[in-house]
């Protein structure tokens, strides 16, 4: 009993050590940081084309490097890729006017320039997950000649036409959600509201079932440590820059501008047919945050000739960070990239 209480106390009062794969900071701008993971494979055996990972704006990117032995980053570094991660950091009130335009046309090109200089390669692969996929898609369409060879999209929320299937679309409908009032009060979209929104999609599972699962497995150290790592990440949300959040709600959730080639970024129309990079589009079939209907239609819009839609059982986070990710999702991504990275 004492041991159980001690374990419970530790799990709820400490942070699990996540994001442990060795890396070097090679570039910063404002809160954004670009990391290069320390290669473990010799340069001669490494893939020539570096891989840049871009995650969502309101969560920490450590989900890509959750814990030793269960880390996508560690896996790809071990397979001989030169892996980079763009960590957006946590925006302050001074960043409330940052828009998707700034992220895609200022921060990303600068980070990519530095990555190319360090990697010594003019071409690169880029993986975008969740809102990271929105950013990478916009970038790929507006800067197709920047050296992007391979574009990987994971659970990409690009198409908002089927509003009945998208829970968030109902919640942020203009009849119910005054986005300007929220942003006037807080500046940025607060992490507490973002966290509530994500957890309320499956309230019983997230607020009760999650803890019952822990209780049932307290004698199993592997399950306990896995729970601790995931719980640490899940509860570490960050604010979203106010202007970006407004674009997400008004231009995407309500206006569905991106998939219809109506989105204006930096004064230019985002035309998805200008995307020419090789494309791997990974869709999670049990994704309740970004249902498959949001991710699939991009396949008909891009100008890429080499493109694959990979549908896989699993949830929004589970396909990359769950127990079967290392057996299914990661090997498929790696095999696809390996054929296109030399």
């Amino acid at each position, binding site marked *: 009993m004492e041991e159980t209480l001690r374990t419970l106390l530790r799990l709820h009062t400490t942070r699990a050590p996540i994001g442990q794969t060795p890396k070097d900071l090679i570039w910063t*701008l404002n809160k954004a940081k670009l990391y290069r993971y320390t290669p473990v494979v010799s340069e001669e055996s490494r893939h020539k084309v570096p891989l840049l990972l871009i995650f969502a704006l309101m969560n920490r990117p450590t989900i890509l490097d959750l814990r030793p032995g269960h880390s996508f980053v560690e896996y790809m570094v071990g397979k001989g890729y030169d892996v980079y991660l763009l960590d957006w950091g946590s925006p302050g009130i001074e960043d409330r006017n940052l828009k998707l335009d700034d992220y895609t046309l200022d921060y990303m090109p600068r980070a990519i*320039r530095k990555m190319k*200089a360090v990697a010594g390669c003019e071409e690169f692969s880029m993986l975008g997950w969740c809102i990271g996929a929105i950013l990478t898609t916009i970038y790929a369409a507006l800067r197709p000649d920047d050296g992007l060879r391979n574009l990987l999209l994971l659970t990409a929320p690009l198409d908002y036409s089927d509003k009945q299937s998208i829970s968030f679309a109902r919640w942020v409908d203009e*009849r119910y*959600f005054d986005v300007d009032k*929220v942003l006037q009060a807080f500046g940025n979209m607060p992490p507490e509201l973002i966290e509530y929104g994500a957890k309320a999609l499956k*309230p019983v599972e997230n607020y009760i079932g999650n803890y019952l699962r822990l209780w049932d497995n307290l004698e199993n150290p592997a399950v306990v440590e896995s729970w601790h790592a995931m719980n640490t990440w899940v509860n570490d949300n960050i604010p979203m820059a106010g202007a970006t959040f407004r674009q997400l709600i008004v231009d995407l959730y309500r206006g569905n501008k991106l998939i219809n080639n109506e989105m204006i970024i930096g004064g230019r129309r985002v035309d998805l047919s200008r995307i020419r990079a090789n494309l791997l589009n990974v869709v999670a079939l049990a994704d309740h945050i970004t249902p498959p209907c949001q991710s699939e239609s991009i396949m008909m819009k891009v100008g890429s000739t080499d493109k694959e839609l990979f549908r896989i059982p699993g949830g929004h986070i589970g396909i990359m960070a769950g127990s079967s990710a290392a057996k299914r999702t990661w090997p498929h991504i790696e095999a696809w990239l390996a054929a296109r990275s030399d």
Partner: protein
Amino acid sequence: MSVKTEPSSDPFEAWRSMRDATMKAWADTMVQAVNTEAYAQATGTLLDSYLTATAPYREIVEKMMTQVLQLSNMPTRNDVIGLAERLTNLELRLDDLDAKLDGIIEQIRRENTDSRASRRAAEEGR
């Protein structure tokens, strides 16, 4: 031939199965509930009411704090925000310089490689 199964040694197994079945039913009901227009309207109204009710308080606190800080000769929130924005602009310009430096270094490296290659070719020609 019938197969005999051993009875489970866990006295709580039956209770656990009932618990899990109840939780699943409750979870499914709640998922349906949060996907209704009524829920969207209710949460929207709740948030809107909170923002409306707290707006005057937030305004008063902000005005008071600004006055207190100014009277104390201390930077206000807007002063700090302004400084942060200028710092970001500085960082942008530093990054531009860094890009130019990288370009120059790369140019020098290429020229060195080219001149070494042409010297080698000239020596081999002799």
